[in-house]
């Protein structure tokens, strides 16, 4: 099986040209014999003239041919072109290993005229349904609209948009449950009705899956093979959002009362603290927000008060119909950092899980050229500890840096879960709070292809080291990642889904055209005391 997987990966990498990335010595590289001066191809290990050992002699990289085209105007205004070609040899340096051979552009600005690149400029892809007085982000007349009794001017427009995902994938967590091979599909379909650019109603469906747990498609393995039909018309999103001052302008005709209270009410997804504290796909809530405030010495302060009363999933990803969530979420931009302070309280019946209090503090900043995000989240079970709510702390740290001469990213993310941290709300398909640690810690959100590494934070430490490489342009990229996690408490209390484990993954994703993306994933893991874990998948993503 592993041989087949390896072969498949090799074929895949070869066909996609990714193997070119590993070519270290371009054609034409040479080596000079230090004894006799003979010049030979870099692959020679001994001098062809005098037999000197060349193993430790540095290689010269291939000559770099630079062609410069100058475009100038003569005194008549006519354009003239002149081309010069120079050949230089570039000696290899250790730092070259970290330079992107495809992305480097040099540092100096070009003094050559840069005419408009009209050819190939993308036209606006229209939404599949576009009804209203104005084109959605398109050129053309905008209708004046009409005044409603509150004084607001409405310009109704309705569009339908969304994404469709289809994946062929196989996954084995190595825990003895066996391999799952499937074709899975997901459709996120939205209808957006704009009254104004600040007031709108959004309705959304996921007609091909149920609660993010069962997806329409075909199950190849384990037997029996069968077609899966999870068609449904459940409304996953339906909310109204707006700005109080914009909705009722007659209350403040001179713009002096500051009624800029933004609000949203209805069924909506929510995420706070990078999805650590709250990561819900469907929740019924109402919230009020103030933005662009100057309090606390901040350059911009945003604060949101929120109440959620329905469709609340607890830390165990299960819905608790008795649960109510109260939250106060703030974010402030300071000179050097953005500080988040998020507070939440969940009230629920004891027998369904019990009450919980949650606090999260985040600090995002740049330290020189190093990006840093630090998050400290704590949860407190106010009654008893249950799978729905428990007491613990999660320390979460992300570092990243852009490599020179490129846009490539290297990142190092780590976590330390102390006791049993629990989230205030987690959707049915959202797993645990560690998804942002790495692609190894996140499920795909499509079918049964789970997170290669456990993403619960109970008494464990872990990290992920990754490298995102852009292949010439940003619409083609490959990600290499290695990661692992280790429990910090008695293994007798381990969950079988959260073993000590190391794993490695590769993701390749590229834009195929104006609407489609191809995503390829492969991973292999070595869970302690379990079989090898592995997964392989290809996904086509369609945007409309």
């Amino acid at each position, binding site marked *: 099986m592993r041989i087949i997987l390896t072969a498949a990966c090799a074929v895949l990498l070869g066909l*996609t040209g990714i193997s070119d990335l590993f070519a270290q010595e371009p054609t034409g590289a040479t080596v000079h014999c230090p004894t006799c001066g003979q010049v030979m191809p870099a692959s020679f290990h001994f001098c062809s003239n005098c037999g000197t050992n060349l193993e430790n002699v540095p290689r010269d990289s291939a000559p770099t041919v630079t062609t410069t085209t100058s475009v100038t105007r003569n005194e008549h205004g006519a354009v003239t072109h002149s081309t010069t070609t120079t050949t230089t040899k570039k000696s290899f340096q250790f730092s070259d290993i970290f330079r992107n051979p495809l992305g480097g552009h040099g540092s100096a600005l070009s003094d050559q005229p840069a005419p408009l690149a009209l050819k190939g400029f993308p036209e606006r892809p229209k939404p599949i349904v576009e009804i209203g007085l104005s084109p959605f982000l*398109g050129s*053309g007349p905008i209708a004046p609209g009409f005044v409603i009794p509150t004084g607001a001017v409405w310009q109704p427009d309705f569009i339908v948009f969304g994404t469709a995902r289809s994946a062929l994938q196989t996954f084995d967590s190595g825990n003895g449950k066996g391999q799952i091979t499937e074709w899975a599909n997901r459709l996120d379909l*939205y209808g957006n009705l704009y009254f104004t*650019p600040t007031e709108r109603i959004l309705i959304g469906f996921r007609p091909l899956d149920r609660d993010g747990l069962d997806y329409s498609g075909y199950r190849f393995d384990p037997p029996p093979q069968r077609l899966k039909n999870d068609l449904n018309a459940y409304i996953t999103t339906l909310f109204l959002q707006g*700005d109080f001052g914009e909705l009722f302008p007659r209350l403040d005709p001179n713009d002096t009362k500051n009624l800029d209270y933004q609000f949203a009410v209805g069924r909506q997804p929510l995420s706070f603290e990078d999805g650590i504290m709250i990561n819900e796909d469907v929740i019924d809530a109402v919230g009020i927000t103030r933005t662009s405030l100057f309090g606390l010495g901040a350059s911009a302060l945003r604060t949101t008060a929120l109440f959620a009363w329905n469709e609340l999933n607890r830390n165990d990803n299960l819905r608790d119909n008795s649960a109510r969530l109260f939250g106060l979420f703030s974010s402030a931009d300071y000179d050097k950092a953005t500080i988040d302070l998020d507070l939440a309280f969940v009230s629920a019946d004891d027998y369904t899980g019990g009450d919980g209090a949650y606090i999260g503090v985040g600090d995002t900043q740049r330290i020189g050229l190093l990006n840093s995000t630090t998050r400290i989240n704590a949860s407190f079970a106010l009654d008893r500890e249950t799978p729905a709510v428990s007491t613990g702390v999660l320390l979460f740290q992300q570092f990243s840096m852009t490599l020179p001469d490129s846009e490539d990213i290297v990142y190092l993310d780590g976590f330390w879960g102390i006791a049993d941290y629990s989230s205030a709300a987690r959707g049915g398909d959202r797993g645990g709070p560690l998804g942002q640690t790495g692609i190894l810690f996140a499920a795909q959100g499509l079918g049964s292809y789970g997170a290669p590494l456990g993403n619960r934070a109970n008494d464990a430490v872990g990290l992920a080291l990754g490298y995102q490489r852009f292949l010439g342009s940003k619409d083609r990229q490959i990600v290499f990642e290695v990661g692992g996690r280790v429990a910090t408490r008695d293994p007798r209390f381990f969950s079988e889904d959260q073993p000590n484990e190391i794993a490695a993954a590769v993701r390749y994703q590229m834009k195929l055209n*104006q609407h489609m993306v191809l995503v390829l994933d492969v991973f292999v893991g070595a869970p302690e005391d379990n079989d090898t874990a592995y997964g392989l998948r290809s996904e086509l993503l369609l945007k409309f």
Partner: protein
Amino acid sequence: MWTKINLVSLTLGAVALIVPTVGFAQAASPTPVPPSTPAAVAPATTNSDDDLLAPAAGTKPAAAAPSSDDDLLAPSSGAQPAAAAPSSGDDLLLPSSAGAPNEPMPDQIVLPGNAPPVPKPANPHAAGDAAAAHAQLLVENKFPSASTCATCHPTQFRQWSVSQHAYAQLSPVFNAFQATVDKMTAGTNGDFCIRCHTQVGMDLKEPILISNMDRNPTSREGITCISCHRVKYNYGKVSGRFAVQRGDIFDPVYGPRGDANLKKVLAQPDKFQVVTKRGDVGRAIHTKVIKFDPLEKSGFCGDCHDVNLLNGFRLEEAFTQFKNSPANKRGETCQDCHMGKIPGIKSGYAFGPAAMVGDQPTPPRKLTDHRFAGPDFSVIHPGLFPFNVKAQQLATMREWLQFDYKAGWGTDAFENKAPTDYKFPTRWQAIDDRYDARAILNEQFAKLEEINLQRYQILRRGFQLHQFVLEQNDARGIKFKVKVANGTDGHGAPTGFDLDRAYFLQVKVTDRHGRVIFASGDRDPNGDVRYSESAYVHNRQLPFDKYLFTLQGKSIVTLLRGGETVQVIPVNQSIDPLPYVRPATNADALIGRSAGARKHAVVIPPGSFRWADYTVDRKLLTGDGPYKVNLKFITQMVPVNLLRTIAETGFDYNMSPKSIAENLVERCQTLWDKTIVLPPRPIEVNLTPTNRQILAPPTKPFQPESKGAKSLEVPAAKVATSE
């Protein structure tokens, strides 16, 4: 099971067949850091006369402008209708009274066909085909050009002509930015951004990316007269997505005062020679001014100056900041500070006739200033901007681009010495044309200097140095800090497009011999400061400036993993190789940001301040004291690294990134320049400027060619005030 894996593998392989092979290009070798270019160090040589303790070396303020050496074309006064300039002895620029058919080029302004005097193309080179003229006439019937309005509103036209509103669409930087964002988002960003910059062009369904030289003349006028005065409703914070009413010159316009004065004009058609019916011969005039109060209220500015993308990204917050400001609580409006007599502060309004119908002024009333001075400035050929009716009549935009004004064409100094075999472009072979062009350019230079003064004053109002504190100066090192203040309390400083405003403090510490022992805010060879967006810092060719004090906001994107990073254009391609701009699928109102990108604002809150701290390590001390600290607060329209990022889609007018960068750096403004000799013990120095200092003129001209240009400023004595 193996069968299943093979099935998957083969599927992957089949899919992979469509993936192009990745090439392997050799990286450019790192190059040694070249010395700073003259352009890069130019601001450092700028000096002011407000040193505290020691005179700073530098140049003297520009001498008083001598009179122009070109008398062929007299500069038009602000009170003169642009289209009816008095004769100046120039037989090429004035409209002919004889009846040759009006055949403008596509990029020429056409005045209403029945509104005398109708300028005709003054030279055969500017004549175009009839189809283009008809096309323009059709547009004129929907969206009258500012040049049409200039006939009766010459003062407002002249003010607007040099404004940021007028420059909005002409800017090659803006257009490249728009094109880059659209390209990065597969076209889904559509007309967002450019909708505000050319309401007319977007209404006419012009392509998003096209040379301005190929746009309709009215659409290239950017935020033109009708962008505000043909708006029917007070839309609110709609990010520019509102309707401009269609209609020709006879249709109603919208004004804050209604049409009391207009009725007086219409009541005397013989005196004013106006006509109100299509087809009649005479001076065409709008038949009604609909009273529209919102034009005097801040909310109207908020139609555009609060930019929220439909995916939840909050790009600009000027209006929301204003609503949270003390100035708003006092009842002040945007217009009070930005359309009043003195830019940047509530100072009352001018008083005078709003229109000159023929040579008859209308009754005096409150006048607002339409120059809207702000941080943006022109980097394009002065024949193209400011808008100038005569310039448009003399030559097309493409022809203007061929006019080498820097070489001195059209000046005695050049023409008297030019070799007889000097090759001029066809359009400029005639010496008279060159002199005509030079005369027009002298007007342009004067207007550019005028707006440069206003820009300087409003920026000095907003950005101030208030205090210098020396905390330590001994053998262990030097520690000091500078208090940088927001001199206004109407909004943050900066505001608006603060993601890309290069506003920074440049600090140099020198010893007794003038040797620089410490620098922060210095520039790399491209002209960027040494922060992460600098290509030289990014490529590890220059060290990161850890003391940099900048007020430029950070454009932040969320990475696939690894947190967030700064990216010049906030389109997230790390998570998604195909970013789409669609309505946010969450309630973005509650988050205040989009899912994968945000702005990290670093503005100084209204009326507040921030300290810039510096430490000179003892290892850097030479022992040759006393040491001097030179402080410069520099404002630049956009940072150079933005050009680098958007260069891929090209720049209009065939400009190069470097040429634009040089313009940016040369024309940036050093708002404050202070030099302090450090005593051995801690001191505090008050740097707070007086009102007189704030209103002082800049110490360097906007561009060297401006020297000798006559100011067109209306003498203050002729302007009555309302307060």
